[in-house]
């Protein structure tokens, strides 16, 4: 427990020696995370919506996300860095992060559409909506909260992998953990670990709020009438990743 106090003291001392100051490392960590998730989202969301809207290609998407789970992200990172060469480490790292983020976002996009009651879509079609209108006015809004859940999983996974990427000198908060170990400076190791854990929990909390906000108000009103007396607030905001 004493070590925890030392670690917290280290965090607030601002003395990181030869390593980057904590705010810089935090910004690096966030920049890599958001850039990768954004690129992955641009690739995965259109495909996910296409699968969800047409119902085709679902088995392939399930197979991809299943196989992706078995890939050790640390190994993939090292492999791409070696293949790209030392000078292109950031590019190699970002490609790794994007590849890791795609399956979760893809799954979030198409499961969001699949979870919609077919009657709602039939009703929209019978009202004379075009396929494009059904997509943008019915499916996208109703599927949004599961898409946000997918983005949440992807973000947390990328935050964890960016931590590991300190091993290839990418910076970020993982550098304190990995540099502290050989020096046997466990206050730095633990301080870094606490910072990473805190960052992940804060991002998770922000996404939990976003996920609640992304439920269309009409649906939310309906839910609160049906479920409010039974479900506690914590049950509804329980993370989707678990």
């Amino acid at each position, binding site marked *: 427990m004493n070590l*925890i106090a030392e670690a917290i003291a280290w965090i607030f001392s601002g003395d990181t020696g030869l390593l980057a100051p904590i705010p810089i490392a935090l910004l690096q960590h966030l920049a890599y995370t958001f850039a990768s998730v954004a690129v992955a989202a641009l690739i995965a969301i259109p495909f996910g919506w296409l699968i969800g809207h047409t119902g085709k290609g679902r088995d392939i998407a399930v197979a991809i996300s299943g196989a992706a789970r078995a890939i050790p992200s640390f190994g993939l990172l*090292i492999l791409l860095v070696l*293949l790209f060469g030392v000078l292109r480490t950031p590019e190699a790292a970002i490609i790794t992060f994007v590849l890791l983020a795609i399956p979760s976002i893809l799954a979030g996009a198409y499961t969001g559409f699949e979870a919609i009651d077919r009657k709602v879509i039939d009703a929209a079609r019978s009202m004379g909506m075009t396929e494009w209108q059904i997509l943008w006015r019915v499916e996208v809004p109703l599927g949004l909260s599961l898409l946000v859940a997918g983005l949440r999983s992807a973000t*947390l*996974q990328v935050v964890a992998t960016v931590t590991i990427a300190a091993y290839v000198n990418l910076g970020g908060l993982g550098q304190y*953990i990995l540099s502290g170990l050989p020096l046997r400076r466990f206050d730095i190791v633990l301080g870094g670990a606490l910072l990473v854990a805190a960052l992940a*929990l804060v991002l998770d909390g922000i996404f939990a709020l976003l996920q609640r906000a992304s439920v269309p108000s009409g649906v939310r009103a309906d839910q609160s009438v049906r479920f409010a007396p039974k479900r506690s607030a*914590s049950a509804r905001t329980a993370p989707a990743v678990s």
Partner: protein
Amino acid sequence: MNWVIDNVDLIWELTLIHLRQSVVAIILGFVLALPLGWLAWRYRAARGGILTVTGLLYTIPSLALLPILPVLLGTPILSEVNLILALTIYAIALMVRSVADGLGSVDASVRLSATAMGYGAVRRFWVIEFPLAGPVILAGLRVTAVSTIALATVGALIGIDNLGYLFTNGSQRRIIPEVLAGIVAVLLIALLVDALLIAAGRMLMPWSRAKRRRARRGALPLEVSVA
């Protein structure tokens, strides 16, 4: 490719270590998740608490959890126990929800019939509810097993040897086949364990093949492995 041929013994040795570490964590996670999942399913009040806490633990990146555990538990920082414990925590977090969902998928009328036939709570759980929840629980177990095996490689970063050693060593010595061999070995044992789980499921639950669609739905592909 020469590197792989020259180092088959090393790869094999690391594979066995890797399997041992991950299988222990998978079994521990499964055994501990059963009572927790049952509590989460049975008591609405417990559900929010259990799922929130396991969800938060799952959120913590592995490289952060690995150095925090020895401080909390007093184990040596380089001990394999830390890795197995961290993997067990992630396994529990993944499994609890599958167990709760699986038990929830058992038809209420079946449960009532069992009670009407005189089954007590304990016997009803083991003879009726647990087998019927089996397909959903198995789907969760497969996800857990595969991601645990992939995740274990992170241990190499803090000096715990397993197949992840091929990544750190290959990175330092710039041997691409070594890193590739590590990835392939991890994929192969993940595939092997997954196939064993499927086979075990077919043997223990011969009735589930007809319902396989339902089981697949139980494992929403939203679950991810913490890198």
